[in-house]
């Protein structure tokens, strides 16, 4: 018993700093052979360390995620903007009436002028909604596209019909993904384009 105690004390003395040793400040609670353990100043427990690591990781994650999403939301374009652009382009092209046209072509020019007015109103309603939401800088982006895509020749009835059908499909796709008034507006524009292509220009 005493021999064991003796040996154990000797062992502890060997591990414990006999002189000046700094190696016991590593987080392992030093055991003193006589009474209370000495106070540890800068020791960090395993639990505290993991808490610190988790907190740091959380901060870094928040930083990364906010840093990634902020420019993404700024760059997202309003899906109604594409519809407004094509409506403006249609309105600009369809109303180009040919002054030296025969009677038959005059009739088609009248039809196209009717549809051009309709498309202009579509573009106005879309621009109003885009400006209301404020996620797209509407008028600034529409004017250059209109100016660059305006041709000098009025499209034929066939071309106009195909373009209206494409516009109807695009508006329908937007209406399916949107909700509320935006879905209503896109759906109504899609229906108007279909009616124009299938009935008025048929």
């Amino acid at each position, binding site marked *: 018993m005493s021999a064991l105690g003796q040996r154990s004390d000797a062992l502890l003395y060997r591990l414990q700093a006999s002189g000046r040793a700094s190696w016991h400040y590593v987080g392992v609670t030093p055991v003193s052979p006589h009474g209370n353990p000495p106070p540890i100043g800068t020791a960090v427990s395993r639990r505290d360390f993991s808490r610190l690591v988790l907190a740091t990781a959380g901060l870094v994650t928040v930083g990364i995620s906010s840093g990634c999403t902020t420019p993404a939301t700024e760059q997202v374009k309003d899906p109604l903007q594409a519809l407004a652009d094509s409506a403006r382009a249609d309105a600009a092209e369809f109303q180009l009436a040919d002054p030296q046209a025969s009677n038959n072509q005059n009739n088609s020019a009248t039809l196209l002028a009717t549809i051009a007015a309709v498309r202009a109103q579509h573009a106005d309603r879309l621009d109003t909604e885009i400006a209301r939401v404020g996620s797209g800088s509407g008028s600034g982006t529409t004017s250059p596209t209109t100016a660059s895509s305006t041709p000098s020749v009025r499209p034929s009835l066939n071309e106009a019909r195909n373009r209206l059908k494409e516009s109807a499909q695009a508006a329908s796709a937007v209406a399916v993904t949107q909700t509320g008034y935006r*879905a209503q507006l896109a759906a109504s524009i899609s229906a108007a384009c279909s009616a124009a292509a299938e009935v008025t220009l048929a």
Partner: protein
Amino acid sequence: MTDVPGLTSENAAVFGYGLVLSRSGADISAAVRARLAEHRTYRDRAEALWPDTAPAPVGYVAADDLPQNPVEMAIRLESDCCEGWRQQIGTATSEDQRRFCVESLTGAAVSLARWRELIPGTPFEVLPGFPRD
């Protein structure tokens, strides 16, 4: 019970096109029959897409301002369908429902334009289903 103005207008159209058919001559009766069959199909599909709705009414009373001319009556029915489906897409919750709303709204808008072609001087509907400014 959900609010389904589109389905309500389809129910009314199925009933109303019977009235139109009873008043239409041989020149438009085939078109009326075709459109009646389309409205029945839309009504059945809408009932499947919005199952939690009241059954169709057993009968209707004609409004005071219901036109007597069958073409004008058909225009009125299609216009009501446009309005109903335009409203319903605003409250639809799934993409399937919204896809169907666009399809039925388009069908009504095309029929509306066809009937209006028979009456000279009628305007083109700029935004079918929306009240005119």
